[in-house]
């Protein structure tokens, strides 16, 4: 019987077929079919996503995928967002840019998250990639507006410049003037994170005016309210707009200009910004509210009654970010007005106050979960919770995919029964079968982890703090959660046993973070020795860990799989547990 060869189709045909396959998972599957398919696929892969920049080296990536046009890299662990990762830990993008400058002259897109980007990097990008189009720096740091000036001056094909939540050394608004007068291709600009009080408004207005394809514009706090009308007037085609300061002394003319500008933006679907809100100016936006699908009021100190009035105008809302000033009453109004709601995030207005400053409890969340059938994603900060509320939420919203609950005081019990919240979270994982992301809080024993290990089969990311009683908790999670990719733990009594028993599991995950737990230095060394494909990094700012006995717990531990071996850019307070030696590499 004649065997049909998989590669009897011409390469161009296969390449054309592959071009319809976008997802990384599918692309990876295609490349595993046979050697010829591997070859064809690797030459035509255009987009790369690297969830941990230390899992692989630039050289390895470039060698396998020579024709990449778009790259996305993530650096620091998620807990860096909360200052748990010391400055200088790593996540430098320069080595990547330097290698790609030579290998990918036609690179168009760079998306970075939690990485250190210097002005030198930005200058190198500006110089090396002639067709550069998209730069997204999400929660990055290390660069200034001088670097942005270089990008503006050289990247004549730039479509997207998004600095969301980055820490930029803002030396003033002059960098905007570096966009040449002939430059018109901007589609998306997000400068909301820029901190200085100087903004070159005239440069901004001219830029906005000549970029007729501009769809997204997010301004920074420094842009005053009375300038918004002018800016919007030049960009009535905007879909996504972020204001600067939304407060000023009430002036009728300013108000009516604003109202006029907002109502002529017929395409507007998303609003954000709203620093320093003066509620009297909110009605200027009411006409635009009815079309809104996304609203970020998480910087706006608007009280509940004003929020309720506002939300009545937003029946199409799918995404709401808001401060807990909304209170239970506001969330009830949300529940009755916004039936299309898919995502809700409620942030604390006074996170460090001991007493609650607002009347926001678990009831607000329950009312939204009961009434909004499409709700999938929740981030909720509150001061009390009950198992009953969680069970109600779980039973009514089995379609939840992301559930992050932060009860502000660690180890807070069910306020009704004073029991742990194991049963409540257990119900969440049992009923919400597609849950991909979960953050726990409150008083929790090992039982909750038993439930998570048993039910949370699609869970990809789990965040745990001040929870559990013993290694059994960690063991349940590592042995039960089949889809687990990222696990981050702080202040839990988890030690060596569960970690060592489940060492192999760690190779199937992207990363594990453990801080203020009970993992001993000896166990870290053992893990590093036995698992060559894991980088086991011990972070300890109080001195080298080998100056203390092996039984001593390490301060912070970050374990991730890697084909690149230990990294060499570690600061003095990070050590890799190497396979070769009893001595750590640092």
């Amino acid at each position: 019987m004649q065997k049909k060869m998989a590669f009897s189709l011409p390469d161009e045909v296969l390449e054309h077929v592959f071009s319809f396959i976008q997802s990384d998972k599918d692309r990876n599957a295609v490349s595993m079919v046979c050697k010829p398919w591997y070859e064809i696929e690797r030459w035509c892969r255009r987009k790369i996503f690297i969830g941990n920049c230390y899992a692989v080296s630039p050289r390895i990536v470039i060698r396998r995928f020579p024709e990449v046009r778009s790259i996305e890299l993530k650096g620091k662990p998620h807990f860096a967002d909360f200052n748990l990762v010391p400055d200088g830990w790593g996540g430098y993008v320069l080595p990547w840019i330097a290698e790609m400058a030579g290998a990918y002259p036609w690179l168009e897109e760079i998306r970075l998250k939690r990485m250190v980007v210097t002005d030198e990097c930005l200058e190198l990008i500006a110089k090396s990639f002639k067709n550069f189009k998209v730069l997204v720096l999400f929660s990055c740091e290390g660069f200034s507006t001088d670097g942005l000036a270089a990008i503006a001056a050289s990247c004549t094909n730039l479509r997207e410049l998004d600095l969301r939540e980055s820490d930029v050394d803002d030396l003033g608004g002059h960098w905007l003037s570096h966009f040449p007068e002939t430059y018109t291709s901007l589609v998306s600009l997000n400068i909301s994170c820029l901190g200085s009080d100087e903004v070159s408004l005239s440069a901004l207005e001219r830029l906005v005016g000549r970029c007729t394809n501009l769809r997204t514009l997010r301004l920074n706090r420094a842009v005053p309210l009375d300038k918004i009308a002018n800016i919007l007037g030049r960009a009535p085609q905007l879909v996504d707009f972020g204001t600067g300061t939304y407060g000023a002394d009430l002036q009728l003319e300013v108000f009516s200009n604003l109202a006029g500008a907002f109502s002529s933006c017929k395409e507007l679907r998303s609003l954000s910004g709203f620093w320093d809100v003066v509620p009297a100016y909110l009605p200027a936006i009411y006409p635009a509210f009815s079309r809104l699908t996304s609203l970020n009021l998480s910087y706006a100190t608007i009280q509940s009654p004003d929020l309720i009035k506002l939300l009545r105008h937003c029946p199409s809302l799918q995404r709401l970010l808001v401060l807990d000033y909304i209170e239970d009453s506001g969330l009830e109004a949300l529940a009755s007005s916004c039936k299309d709601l898919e995502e809700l995030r409620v942030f604390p207005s006074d996170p460090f106050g001991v007493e609650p400053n607002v009347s926001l409890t678990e009831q607000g969340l329950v009312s939204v979960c009961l009434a909004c059938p499409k709700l999938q994603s929740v981030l909720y900060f509150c001061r009390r919770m009950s198992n009953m509320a969680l069970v109600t939420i779980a039973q009514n919203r089995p379609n939840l995919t992301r559930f992050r609950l932060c009860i502000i005081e660690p180890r807070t019990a069910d306020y009704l029964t004073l029991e742990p919240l194991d049963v409540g979270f257990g119900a969440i994982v049992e009923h919400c079968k597609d849950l991909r992301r979960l953050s726990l809080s409150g008083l929790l024993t090992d039982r909750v982890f038993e439930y998570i290990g048993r039910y949370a089969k699609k869970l990809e990311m789990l965040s745990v703090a001040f929870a559990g009683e013993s290694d059994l908790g960690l063991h349940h999670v590592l042995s039960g959660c089949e889809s687990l990719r990222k696990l981050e733990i702080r202040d839990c009594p988890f030690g060596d046993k569960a970690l060592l028993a489940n060492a192999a599991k760690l190779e199937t995950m992207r990363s594990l973070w453990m801080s203020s737990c009970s993992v001993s230095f000896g166990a870290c060394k053992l893990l590093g020795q036995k698992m060559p494909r894991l980088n086991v990094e011990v972070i300890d700012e109080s001195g080298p860990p080998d100056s203390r006995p092996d039984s001593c717990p390490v301060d912070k531990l970050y374990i991730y799989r890697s084909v690149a071996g230990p990294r060499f850019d570690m600061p003095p307070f990070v050590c890799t547990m190497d396979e070769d030696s009893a001595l750590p590499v640092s």
Partner: protein
Amino acid sequence: MVFEKDLNLDATELRLGLPGTSEESGKQASTTLRIGNKRALPDMNEDSSVAASKQCDQETAPPTKAQVVGWPPIRSYRKNSLQTKKTEAETSGMYVKVSMDGAPYLRKVDLKNYKGYPEVLKALEDMFKFKVGKYSEREGYNGSEFLPTYEDKDGDWMLVGDVPWEMFVNSCKRLRIMKGTEARGLGCVV
């Protein structure tokens, strides 16, 4: 695998609570820096229990109502935007970035932590592992290729130590430790 439930690991549980801090949220980032400082300046009178908790043969300090590092889990920029506009002195005197020529990373210091030049210079020396020379008004820093400089509110680069301490704290926007020949222009005698 069977696990005993009676491992009783509470005794070795590490916590990063800092007793006695009553500062606002923005200071949280400084706690990790402080731990590094404590080693070098063991006579500082506060938070010695933080250093103690690092040694595993001592009791860990139980966290009080004081803030725990990184909890609740809120990003710094969010915390900062919740605060009302501070006074001039408060904003300019707080966190400044520190860079050193040749080092691939930036650090941050809170100038409010220090009472004078010797303290902050020592902190910088420890942070970046270098030594400044001896300072004199006439000659600047003598005897080291490293030069501590700062950018003031007017955008000028100045030598650290030239102005009175209070004036420095109120006008310093960022610090830069220059190295070698570049330092000459600011009056470094190498």
